[in-house]
């Protein structure tokens, strides 16, 4: 058991910090208040990710044969931490390198890999994730968007909602129903967003401009080559993807950085010398660090090539607890941050609201922990 970073890992983190310091514009903290999916940040992310790719820092954890550096999951974790702490200058592209790419590598056909992996590795792709529907949120297996095979095309009809980045994404990782066999009736299509029949409507959000959308599919014709994996294999594939995604955003890192920033502001302004504030700050720090180490325990398993199971839900819920308490700390002791006094803290607050909602609601994580970690009997349906 070793809690020390290796010299090589430390050097990698330092390299990332230096890259960020040299690359991000001077007004970045204010600029980053644009939502990750906003047109401004999406445009900036193309430039930023291109530079990351030039420095071989965009997909260093991918295998060498498809443009990566073959680095281990610890490097992926360090990369994700540094980017998220910086305010995620990769915008929506973080999703590409975190789970879209790895899922393409594991399940994609040769054609799909050749078409989709290079743009991701070069930092010029943006994907959206067509999962939730108006009637299917946490109960994802009840989704109704239907794809009917007609010769060499699927005809897709239905509606998605809460779809991040859909306004500017080129491709949708779309879950749709190809039969009525609940989970086994769900398939994945990789759908170009400029296909006729797709309509996107942005939903104003607390996170910022351009983050969540409704997407309508009206008689959208998608060639059979777009089928990802086999018909009915979606549940298996997204289980793999979500394990990556649940760990993909190291929110504990930004939460802790925001807490440190808040303390620093309180000290500068002479408001730190107050036991009530210190006690709360320490409690919040404990939650952040507990979430961090629980997440590192998961990365350890991945680094050993072991299957990551329901313990990732426990790490994820720990992160939700931390994220929330940091937001509450800032509101209570630095309310001016949510006006415009401290852009970094405002950015954290805007994004923090998502922590327990996206990528599987916090309550679903608790269900998974109850059933699969604690082995409690399921609730009858």
């Amino acid at each position, binding site marked *: *058991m*070793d*809690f*020390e*970073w*290796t010299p090589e*890992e430390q050097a990698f983190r330092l390299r990332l910090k230096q890259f960020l310091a040299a690359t991000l514009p001077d007004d970045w903290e204010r600029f980053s208040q644009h939502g990750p999916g906003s047109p401004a940040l999406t445009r900036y992310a193309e430039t930023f990710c291109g530079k990351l790719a030039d420095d071989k820092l965009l997909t260093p954890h991918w295998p060498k044969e498809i443009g990566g550096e073959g680095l281990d999951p*610890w490097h992926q974790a360090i990369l994700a931490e540094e980017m998220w702490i910086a305010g995620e200058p990769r915008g929506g592209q973080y999703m590409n390198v975190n789970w879209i790419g790895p899922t393409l590598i594991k399940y994609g056909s040769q054609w799909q890999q050749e078409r989709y992996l290079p743009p991701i590795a070069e930092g010029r792709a943006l994907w959206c994730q067509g999962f939730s529907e108006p009637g299917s949120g946490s109960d994802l297996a009840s989704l109704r968007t239907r794809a009917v095979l007609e010769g060499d095309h699927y005809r897709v009809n239905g509606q998605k909602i809460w779809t991040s980045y859909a306004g500017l994404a080129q491709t949708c990782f779309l879950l749709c129903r190809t039969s009525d066999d609940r989970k086994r009736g769900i398939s994945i299509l990789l759908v170009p967003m400029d296909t006729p029949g797709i309509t996107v409507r942005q939903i104003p959000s607390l996170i910022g401009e351009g983050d969540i959308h409704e997407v309508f599919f009206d008689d959208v014709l998608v060639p059979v080559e777009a089928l990802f994996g086999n018909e009915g294999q979606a549940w298996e594939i997204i289980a793999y993807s979500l394990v990556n995604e649940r760990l993909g955003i190291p929110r504990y890192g930004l939460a802790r950085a925001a807490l*440190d920033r808040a*303390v620093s502001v309180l*000290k500068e302004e002479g408001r*730190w010398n107050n*036991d009530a504030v*210190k*006690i*709360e*700050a*320490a*409690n919040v*720090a*404990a*939650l952040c*660090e*507990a*979430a961090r*180490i*629980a997440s*590192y*325990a998961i*990365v*350890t*398993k991945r*680094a*050993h090539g072991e299957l990551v199971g329901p*313990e990732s839900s*426990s790490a994820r*819920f*720990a992160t939700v*607890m931390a994220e929330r308490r940091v937001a509450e700390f800032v509101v209570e002791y630095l309310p001016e941050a949510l006006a415009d006094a401290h852009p970094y803290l405002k950015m954290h607050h805007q994004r923090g609201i998502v922590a327990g909602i996206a990528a599987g609601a916090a*309550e679903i*994580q*608790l*269900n998974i*922990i*109850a*059933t699969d*970690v*604690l*082995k*409690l*009997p*399921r*609730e*009858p349906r």
Partner: protein
Amino acid sequence: MDLSLNDDQVAIVDALDALTRPYAAVSLHETGFALFDPELERELSKSGFLDVAAVPELGVVTAAIIVERVARLPQATNAALSAIVAPLLGLSAGTPLCIVEENAQARPLRFLCEGATVVVAGHSITSFTVTGDQVRAEPEALYGYPVSSLRSVPSDRQQHDVSLDEFYTRWRIALAAESAGLLAAALQSVCVYTTDRNQFGRPLASFQGMRHRLAEAQVRTNGVYWLAIKAAATLDPADAALAALHAQEAARAVVYDFHQFMGGMGMTLEHPLHLWTYRLKLLASELGGRGANALAAADAIWG
């Protein structure tokens, strides 16, 4: 960074489990408030499990792994202070050890008895060997440990050449590691009971109101474990203060819930849950409680 147990640690845990298996299987019917077995204490000392902190390649982190595991047993043991604090003071493992803060001498001390070594934490770290007339037994105490109080503290004490930071760091790690094991065992016992107990035609633990709160307890318990183990690995005062704080906060959050979930059985001495939860209550008050540990953490992190 690698948070998996190494081969030595796996072997130690296996051997420890073999040693403690008979103790884990004892009858727990009406044990009273405290369950203590001197034979277990002797076996743990004799076997060398409590000496590992002094072995450079094993260190305090392995001691914390052992302490967490031993704390899951229904028997109260002094393993935490023996394995984690005693080596810092040059005391041999197995020495009955109690710690008292100079400004809180009235509090009940676990395992205080004639012949025990009492460490006094004040402006410096000192200790003395307790005589019979300095001990007031507390047979009616509600804590899950055998506890006694000090009638007096002698002024003539042995001085230990350790810094307050080092000492408090070890004490906090010991508290957090033991708490992690107690939380895990208490949670496990509640999960078993609420899975077996049927009401409204189905297991209690199938109701979401209970499932979610138990799951949240799992998250807290997991957090305490990892913060304790990390602090044991780094011996960093900030890590240790966070671990102790999180342990005491977790105890506050879950102990009453656990008894609540058990219904009537949660009020009895027939079920062993109290053996772990009532120990957590005493640990929650050590080191000045949550507030003092939080202030220590804040000072260590931010100054």
